[in-house]
């Protein structure tokens, strides 16, 4: 019974739409985070001196601290963006798919 429901949902073009849109969105965001984080780790590993530079003449704030703080904030903002979109747009689409599968079932 469950399996038949899954079959129906899979056949729904909206399901393909949901999977590809949400998947693409999630992977793009994950790619941004991974690239920035491992890019940063590579700089720490291979060129640490560049992170010790002050951001501007006479400032005690180094590039490393500024970049890291930015990442803390930016990653969290990306998280918020994802949650916002997934909890509205994608969840609505999911509900439609499930509802349509129920209807066909009857």
């Amino acid at each position, binding site marked *: 019974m469950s399996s038949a429901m899954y079959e129906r949902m899979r056949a729904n073009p909206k399901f393909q739409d949901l999977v590809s849109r949400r998947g693409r969105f999630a992977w793009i965001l994950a790619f941004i985070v991974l690239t920035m984080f491992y890019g940063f780790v590579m700089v720490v590993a291979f060129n640490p001196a560049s992170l010790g530079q002050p951001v501007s003449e006479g400032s005690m704030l180094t590039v490393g601290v500024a970049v890291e703080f930015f990442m803390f904030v930016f990653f969290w903002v990306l*998280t918020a963006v994802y949650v916002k979109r997934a909890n509205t747009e994608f969840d609505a689409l999911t509900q439609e798919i499930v509802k349509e599968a129920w209807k066909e079932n009857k």
Partner: protein
Amino acid sequence: MRRLTHLTTALGLFAIAAMAYAGPPVEGAMEKSATNWHAIIMFCLFVAMTMGITYWAASRTKSTADFYTAGGGITGFQNGLAIAGDYMSAATLLGLTAMVYTQGYDGYIYMLAFFAGWPIILFLMAERLRNLGKFTFSDITAYRLDQGKVRTMAAISSLTVVCFYLIAQMVGAGQLIKLLFGLDYNIAIFAVGILMMVYVTFGGMVATTWVQIIKACMLLAGGTLVMILAFSQFGFSFQTLLEKATAVHKLGDKLMSPGSLLADPVTAISLGLGLMFGTAGLPHILMRFFTVTDAKEARKSVLYASGFVAYFFNVIFIMGLCGILIVGQNPEFFEGGTVGGKLIGGGNMVAMHLAKAVGGNMLLGFLAAVAFATILAVVSGLALAGASAISHDIYARVIMKGQASEATEIRVSRIATICLGFVAIVLGILFEKQNIAFMVGLAFGVAAAANFPVLILSMYWKGLTTRGALFGGYGGLVSAVLFVVFSKSVWVDVLHNPAPLFPYTQPALFAMPIAFLLAYIFSKSDSSVRAGKEIEAFEDQYVRAQTGFGASGASSH
């Protein structure tokens, strides 16, 4: 009523023990005896409050779903706080403050590595975890694979991670309490172990979650207060703070650039991988995704949790920097009164000394109570995760093949919790001298290599078969542990061999590829009929992972 009596007795016994041992001051530090009382009173208040919650939770814990996941009725915000609470252990508060104090910027790099796993968990895992799982993360791996074999493997690696993490927490608890409360190390270990058993056996996930939430609030509030009081001495100017700190610190101008901690690239990358993907493989964290009603709340909990974690790490960074000036320049905090010598109570006490310097004994007492509460809460979360692996995965699914009644399954979890409590007490006493940070690192390394690869493959890769999952899981587990045993920290420092067999201290960069590769090779070469069926079953699993249809708890809402 009987439960209440038990709880009151346990609480009373603990209070008596605490008072009896609070008397003699710790090794030569006379002023410590005064501070003990503040800490003990606040800690007893915390315990009393959480015992009340446990009593309330005990009456609501009837089914296995209540016991393991609080009936799935925790909101996203509450769960976010609880996840943050599970993630921010005492090692975070004490260890990372100390790391910034001694190493400056390197400590901040560690924190980013601890944090960066969260967005990845959200984008790639949180939703599918919630949609596919019921109680433990083995539910996901075993969804379409051989229940018995896969669950046994997942339970073994969960328990391994839980045990390493437990050792770190117990040792931390013992040392901290010995110093702050004036209690004997072994008494402290017993107190933590027994309280943990009470929370988990009586209150299950409901009590564990609320202990975690209260503790997370205390930790956030206490840390913020210390940070504000300390930072105000520098007019809230980051510039002034850094100018003064670099002027007095022994690293000088190097304080704010990457230093010796991550000197070699392989270690830096391996650490980054281990911390990021280790987070995604910690059983007590993964378990938290099943306490919410649906994927929507699961996503929200990650948003809240990562917000709290990111905020708190930045608070700790400032605390550590303020510590350089406020603690590092004050002879009162050094043994024998020589600035630059050994800190009273060891390097991990920077946060505590800072609290005393800016807020007196009251604040020190409060922060000490928070640190102890933190350990207690994290240990409870771990014990629950370990107990579920034993009762839900091994007992109910492997031994009884799904035929166990809910009542016996809960009874087994309670017995497992009590056993784990004793194991934790014994390990805590045996490993008294072990380095805490190293044990935490090991737990993360094993989680990243043994749990994460199989989990992510079973969610994303159609081709994974039982055979592949077993080789990948066991391979990752064994190789991660071996890499650590052969590294300098065990082979040379503990076993006193002249040279390490494995040149790096962080296993993730090497053990993770081994796990993935073994899972791939042994899945691909598996041409059995069963493997064919498992691959076919991925289609339905995929629809459920995406839509949440059929996920437990979702139907009733």
